[in-house]
């Protein structure tokens, strides 16, 4: 999301819809019984989902309570995970979740935005549909298939062709040190990147398509090149929607389990180097839940689930805020999100 320049929207267009203070149907309220029943049913349905989230949170919290009581806040920043001695600290998993998602975003955002910009602004008409379709097809591949591909194709490829030059150039930084065994934070991040590209690309493409052509025409009319038109007129106009697209991808990256666990190395350890194995919260829960025999072990896993839940909610809330702040004008896509 940092790749987008936040510039003032050139000539913010007048808002098309003037939202009235009251819902449109307000004047019809209470006209007859069937309307009231209809309204009641819809209200119940609408309340059902928020209630579900509250119930989910409550259940997680209650199940995690023994671990919260016993380990307190140190659960968040200690890194020993020893089921035999019943000592639990989730810091490596929290770190691994955030770090793998960050790597995924660093790779996926430029790629996905590039695809979206190419498809909406530059590609010849006959290319657009097939390519858009293929990119979206990536989203339909089950994550275990990505995992298998990661184990048998991506990791050997990284080991032979990517990591040696990477170490030669950037080996002096703390991020690329140590021996590369294959299963690593880097592999996990790359797999995640590939998995979230279709989401970011598809939503960004919709957002860019919704930018009125008057924006482009105005920029081109002022002597801008096509690239300048995209960069100064189209992208800023759609930035709220684009941020939404990125956050959607981030949300998916945070919670992805199967593909990540197959390539990330599943090690309860914090290493700054992307070449070292790591662990994510979702992967640890999936791996360890079925054999968690003691109550404290189960409770610790529930607490990990609670932390993941809270982080996901926070990320989404942050995205909302960002979109609202950026979209104070009438940027495209803000309403859809």
């Amino acid at each position, binding site marked *: 999301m940092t790749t987008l320049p936040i510039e003032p929207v050139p000539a913010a267009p007048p808002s098309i819809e003037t939202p009235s203070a009251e819902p449109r149907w307000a004047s019809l309220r209470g006209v007859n019984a069937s309307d009231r029943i209809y309204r009641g049913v819809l209200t119940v349905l609408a309340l059902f989902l928020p209630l579900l989230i509250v119930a989910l949170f409550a259940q997680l919290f209650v199940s995690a309570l023994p671990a919260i009581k016993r380990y307190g806040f140190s659960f968040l920043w200690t890194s020993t995970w020893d089921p035999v001695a019943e000592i639990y600290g989730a810091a490596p998993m929290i770190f691994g979740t955030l770090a793998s998602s960050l790597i995924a975003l660093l790779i996926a955002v430029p790629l996905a935005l590039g695809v979206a910009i190419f498809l909406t602004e530059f590609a010849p008409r006959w290319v657009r549909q097939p390519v858009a379709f293929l990119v979206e097809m990536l989203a339909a591949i089950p994550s275990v298939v990505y995992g298998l591909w990661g184990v048998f194709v991506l990791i050997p490829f990284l080991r032979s062709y990517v990591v040696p030059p990477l170490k030669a150039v950037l080996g002096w930084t703390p991020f690329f040190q140590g021996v590369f*065994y294959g299963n690593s934070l880097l592999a996990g991040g790359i797999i995640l990147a590939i998995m979230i590209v279709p989401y970011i690309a598809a939503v960004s493409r919709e957002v860019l398509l919704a930018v009125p052509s008057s924006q482009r025409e105005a920029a081109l009319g002022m002597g801008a090149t096509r690239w300048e038109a995209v960069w100064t007129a189209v992208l800023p106009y759609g930035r709220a929607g684009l941020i939404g697209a990125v956050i959607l991808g981030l949300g998916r990256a945070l919670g992805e389990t199967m593909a990540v666990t197959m390539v990330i190395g599943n090690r309860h350890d914090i290493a700054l180097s992307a070449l070292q194995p790591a662990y994510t919260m979702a992967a640890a829960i999936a791996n360890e839940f079925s*054999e968690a*025999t003691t109550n404290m072990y189960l409770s610790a896993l529930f607490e990990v689930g609670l932390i993941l839940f809270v982080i996901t909610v926070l990320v989404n809330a942050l995205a909302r805020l960002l979109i609202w702040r950026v979209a104070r004008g009438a940027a495209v896509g803000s309403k859809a999100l």
Partner: protein
Amino acid sequence: MKTSRFLALAALLCAAAPAAAQVQLNGAGASFPNIIYQKWILTFNQANPTTQLNYQSIGSGGGIRQFSDGTVDFGGTDAPMTDSAIAAIQGNVLHIPTVLGAIVATYNLPGVTAQLKFTPDVLADIFLGKITKWNDARIASVNAGVTLPATDIVVVHRADGSGTSYGWTDYLTKVSPEWASQVGKGSSVNWPVGLGGRGNEGVAATVNQTPGAIGYVELGYATINKMAFGQVRNSAGKFVAPTLEAVTAAAAGVLAKMGANTDFRVSLTNPDGATAYPISTMTWLLVHKTYADAAKAKALVQYIWWAETEGQAMAPDLGYAPLPQQLRPWIQARLKSITAGGHPVWAGSAAQ
């Protein structure tokens, strides 16, 4: 399509006809014996159509949990229940061993074709991270004639909780005081070094893809997938390759110490016996001592006794080692002690 549906419906109706005699038994637990359990259930059901058995392979921990909660009629586990877990259900549980297995040390060393030999302390020190190169003097000294590369050792362990990890760490705990104090045994432990793979297949894939890797998988899995695995020195000082015979020999070695009143919660690792493979494991069915439903208990006892007798013959083909014959009278005695409503349910099984 329509015909087959009609047939299925007809079969369903026929099956439903003697509904009064139908018994439905649900079980869940260890995934290691799942293949033979499913085979047993299928074969037993053909001979006894009135008994419907169902076993879900959800893992040992889940099996113990569901069995203790009373969600299922019987459980399956690769790691025996702890004393506190047994106390939590007022001791209402019997461990009935079913088949044996072995855990092998599998490795990926390009260029090495000979079967490597491992001593217990070498295995422990590799997994403790103290031996880090394949050409370490302690590995080389027991593998005379093998040219070992100077590559790093990459340890691969199970990331998911598993009975296989329990067996492996149980063995290391017995042979290495340092392992016992630093790590201990469990279906998931705090591994000092290494990468985690999900399931036998995850460990196998990581080992196969990583030159210099060493991991542990079940013998049956390693055999089917033609993986390289090593011999391990047993307590008698002999290097033994993991075979089904060596596993049954391990059980026989432990048997001598058990006695007829055993609760079967024994560990097969590091047993006596010159031909015994030291990392052998046992898997158990968990049944209650008392059941509320006599018909259920009767059918369950009948099934288990069938599995312990006729069923054992199916084990070798499926990659499991059968139990030693000497165990049968002891198992029979346990099954005879199961009651429902205060009465033993064995009588019906006598026909078997």
